[in-house]
């Protein structure tokens, strides 16, 4: 009898108020008495129960079994679970019941709406670097959705143990920036980019971005459900932090959030993954962190972290600009800059003498080859010697390339490009020389006269080509060589000498200026 009562009460609590069950088995008078007792105690106890509410037992979800809690965020609890039919292991996100308790109904509705929107937004964008949503369902306490279970650590965990090289970190953020670009193209702002929300799949090392809990459509915003400012202070753009501090109304908040604020968060994420710490100083509470963000009292603004390479530091700084307009205009721009940094050639890291070699060996050889050609022309020797003297500068050049290739850490793409460009230079020159020789009807002086300006023009093209992926200043070399092509027509006997000296200067300036030859 008492058992019936308890069960009935439990059923009652589970079902909604509108569908009260009948009480056929119970004596009405007794039931009312029990109920009164229960009510007296429960009215007093329920506030404490809600306060203590610790979701220890996972919820029951029809299609899944073996739920095990793996994470907990501001809004939801994430479980690992097995799909009953496919036996695939998925991650399931469920709204935190304790977050809905103790808040007024309007706020609870907002939270629920947010949670539902999260599944919709994440499901809307398909990208290899975004955690895909599989299924959305409903249960007693609200909705749940299942998504890809990513077996691996978060970027935050990796950076904390410093297991990532700057190259790997840059690669991760590049992928994530491309994903964020896609999200932006769909008109969605992620709103909570941070190392904790970036997962690295263990097997493939594929980075994936998750947690669209604060994401929003850029323009579309139903009335009454606008967000206000939310996010993680340490990774929040200053304009948002400022709005949060001044408690801007929720309707204005939308106009402050923008692509640029996501870019800032990406930059802060990159910086923190490289530095291995949070951008905010330790021991500050949320309010103080917000103030720090606004007043730029951040670690990246104050101290220089030695382990961050200069190139990446500059990329971070551009993302972390105070003025939104000074940051990258799109995530794609950031991704491209990271890609350029990743593909940068770095010849010298394992070949310390390369710069010296260029200055002390290659440059003199190039200069001497020009002087020698001028000399041989006057001596009227067999023209074979002249051609040999002309082209022998390629020897040390290619020897240097192959030596540095074996020991440098430059990427495969950079090496291939370097070889292609210079072999092209060599082939074009020989072809041009042959053509000049044929056109000038066996006159070596005439051949040289026509050939050297052509050779300078070929060099000009080569340097313009190199300015794309190597050093940007190579385009000025290209301009200089174009001018040289004209200068070389002035004196036909001295043109080889001028060319040789010009080549030697190019070589020295390259060795001195190109960052790829830096010793570090």
């Amino acid at each position: 009898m008492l058992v019936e009562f308890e069960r009935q009460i439990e059923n009652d609590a589970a079902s909604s108020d509108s569908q009260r069950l009948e009480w056929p088995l119970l004596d009405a008078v007794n039931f009312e008495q029990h109920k009164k007792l229960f009510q007296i105690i429960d009215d007093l106890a329920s506030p404490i129960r809600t306060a203590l509410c610790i979701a220890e037992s996972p919820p029951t979800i029809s299609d899944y079994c073996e739920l095990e809690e793996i994470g907990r965020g501001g809004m939801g609890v994430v479980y690992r679970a097995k799909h009953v039919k496919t036996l695939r292991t998925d991650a399931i996100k469920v709204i935190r019941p304790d977050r809905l308790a103790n808040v007024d109904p309007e706020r609870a509705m907002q939270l629920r709406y947010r949670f539902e929107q999260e599944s919709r937004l994440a499901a809307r964008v398909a990208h290899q670097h975004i955690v895909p949503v599989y299924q959305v369902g409903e249960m007693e306490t609200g909705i749940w959705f299942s998504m890809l279970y990513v077996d691996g650590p978060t970027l935050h965990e990796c950076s904390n143990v410093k297991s990532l090289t700057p190259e790997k970190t840059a690669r991760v953020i590049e992928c994530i920036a491309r994903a964020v670009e896609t999200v932006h193209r769909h008109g969605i702002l992620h709103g909570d980019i941070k190392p904790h929300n970036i997962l690295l799949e263990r097997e493939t090392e594929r980075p994936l971005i998750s947690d669209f809990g604060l994401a929003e459509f850029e323009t579309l915003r139903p009335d009454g459900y606008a967000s206000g400012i939310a996010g993680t202070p340490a990774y929040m753009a200053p304009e948002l932090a400022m709005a949060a501090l001044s408690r801007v109304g929720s309707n204005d908040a939308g106009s402050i959030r923008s692509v640029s604020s996501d870019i800032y968060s990406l930059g802060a994420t990159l910086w923190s993954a490289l530095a291995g710490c949070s951008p905010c100083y330790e021991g500050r509470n949320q309010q103080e962190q917000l103030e720090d963000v606004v007043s730029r009292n951040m670690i990246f603004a104050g101290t220089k972290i030695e382990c961050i390479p200069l190139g990446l530091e500059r990329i971070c700084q551009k993302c972390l600009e105070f003025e939104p307009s000074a940051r990258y205009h799109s995530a794609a721009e950031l991704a491209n800059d990271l890609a350029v940094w990743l593909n940068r050639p770095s010849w010298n890291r394992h070949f310390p003498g390369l710069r010296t070699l260029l200055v002390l060996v290659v440059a003199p050889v190039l200069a001497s080859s020009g002087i020698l050609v001028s000399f041989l022309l006057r001596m009227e020797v067999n023209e074979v010697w002249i051609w040999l003297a002309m082209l022998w500068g390629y020897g040390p050049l290619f020897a240097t390339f192959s030596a540095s290739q074996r020991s440098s850490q430059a990427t495969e793409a950079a090496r291939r490009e370097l070889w292609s460009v210079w072999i092209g230079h060599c082939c074009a020159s020989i072809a041009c020389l042959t053509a000049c020789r044929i056109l000038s009807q066996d006159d070596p002086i005439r051949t040289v006269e026509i050939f050297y300006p052509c050779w300078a023009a070929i060099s000009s093209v080569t340097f313009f080509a190199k300015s794309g992926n190597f050093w940007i200043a190579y385009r000025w070399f290209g301009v200089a060589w174009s001018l040289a092509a004209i200068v070389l027509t002035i004196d036909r006997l001295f043109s080889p000498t001028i060319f040789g000296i010009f080549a030697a200067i190019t070589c020295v300036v390259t060795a001195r200026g190109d960052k790829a030859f830096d010793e570090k």
Partner: protein
Amino acid sequence: MQTPFEKDIQRFRPILLSIAEAMISPTLRGHLEASDLVQQTFLEAHCNAEKLAGTESAPLFGWLRICLKNNLLDAVKHLKSQKNDLKRQMRISELAESFDRMEQLLVADQTSPSQIAERNEQILILLALLQEIPPDQKTAVIMKHLRGCSLKEIAEELNRSESATAGLLHRGRQNLVAAMESRGQV
């Protein structure tokens, strides 16, 4: 011979005991004793007797609650470092949050309307009276009303049949309400 401070402070013992018992989840039961935690809390209160003497009752109760919270969190941390199987199941932050929420609930009497203050007073009396009913009834009522467990779970925990547990619950409620009525609180 009890000092006035002693008298003052002992009033809160049953309340703190009930809070601690409600906080200690089934996974921790057997590893932690509510009475130990409360005892430790009172020891610390005695060590600070000079500082606390003359404090009004509300701030004193607040001090005790925070002290209990810290003791519980420390104990759980210690347990977690020793028992691997507990690592996943217990979250310190979660426990701290629960405490904070309860804090918000209980300190509401400082500034809120009188009916809330009155209800809070009743809640505290309920918590105190819980310690006066037989232990099995107390455990059943705490599990049912403060932790929201189902009848089945309580029966398993107490190692009794469901009908026996339902009886315990009923008698527990009867005793509690009777005790409250005798204090004129219903």
